């Protein structure tokens, strides 16, 4: 049976108490925050609890918020069984972002976490194979961070070409 966001939130609160933040957003975008060192527990509960039954991790992404000095990892959960959504957000410390992995719960998280690691530098503790996935192994920095500056060249290859429209 499909639950609405409030019901899902209540179920999570009932199990984990105050570590689950308040509901923000509505409908399919309803979200709640979770501390980075508890996310695995929460996800495991969300997946195994028969009423919640989140059997699918629809999306796992990261957002850099330099202003609040956090990198937010966003989990979009979806249940094929009950056809309902919920979003979990985890704020990791920007200087040394470490978040528990959920790749043992949903196999799809494996590559998604690798991508977030690659592009935002979030380390997922417990991930079996945390390597860069899109960028070259020796690429400096994490491109999707807001303060990332593109290097001038990579192994002698210039990364940009001069505009032909310069006056």
């Amino acid at each position: 049976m499909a639950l609405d966001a409030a019901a899902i939130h209540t179920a999570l609160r009932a199990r984990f108490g105050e570590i689950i933040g308040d509901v923000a957003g509505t409908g399919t975008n309803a979200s709640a925050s979770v501390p980075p060192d508890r996310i695995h527990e929460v996800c495991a509960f969300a997946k195994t609890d028969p009423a919640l039954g989140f059997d699918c991790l629809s999306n796992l992404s990261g957002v850099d918020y330099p202003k609040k000095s956090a990198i937010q990892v966003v989990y979009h959960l979806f249940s094929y069984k009950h056809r309902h959504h919920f979003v979990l957000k985890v704020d990791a410390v920007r200087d040394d972002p470490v978040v528990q992995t959920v790749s043992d719960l949903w196999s799809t998280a494996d590559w998604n976490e690798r991508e977030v690691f690659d592009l935002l530098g979030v380390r997922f503790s417990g991930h079996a194979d945390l390597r860069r996935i899109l960028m070259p192994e020796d690429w400096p920095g994490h491109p999707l961070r807001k303060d990332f500056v593109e290097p001038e060249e990579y192994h002698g290859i210039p990364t940009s070409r001069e505009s032909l429209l310069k006056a």
Partner: protein
Amino acid sequence: MGLGGYLRNLKEAVATIADGLAVTASHLVRKPYTVEYPDRLEGDVRIQDTLPFRYRGILEVDLEICTGCLACERACPIDCIVIDAAKDKAAGGLVMTRFDIDMGKCMYCGLCSEPCPTGAIHHTPEFEGADYSLESLVRRFVKAPAIAYKPKKAGETDPEILPVLERGMRYVGEFASPDAPEKE
């Protein structure tokens, strides 16, 4: 797999393969579809002339009707348009000294021609853009500084500009707008 399955396999294989062969055989008597591209079509028509009006080919600017409003430069997401225009009292209006488009960078999205008030910048059906150097892909439209076009309230009367403007307005009119409900 018993003998029945064995024979069924054989039968299925023969039947489906024969059907496939029938399809390909039927194609032997059908006409080919190829358009022999670099050739002219029947009646000495270039392929370019058969393309629809909305076709987004290489950009072109009709400088006669360009108002120098810089809307296209602002709209371009990759900054491949550069316009230099300055107010010049002596010349009596906006003088354009530069209108360059780097076709090597252009991604043919059409965002520049959408806000153009007169349809001066527009995509042509021309698509043959191969050239020998990057530099030659830069189209420089202002040959000599020119005064930008000023739309006249009473409507255009100059017989040289009129057809250009009409074409331009028709081009802009193709774009959907929220105000005027278009009919089929």
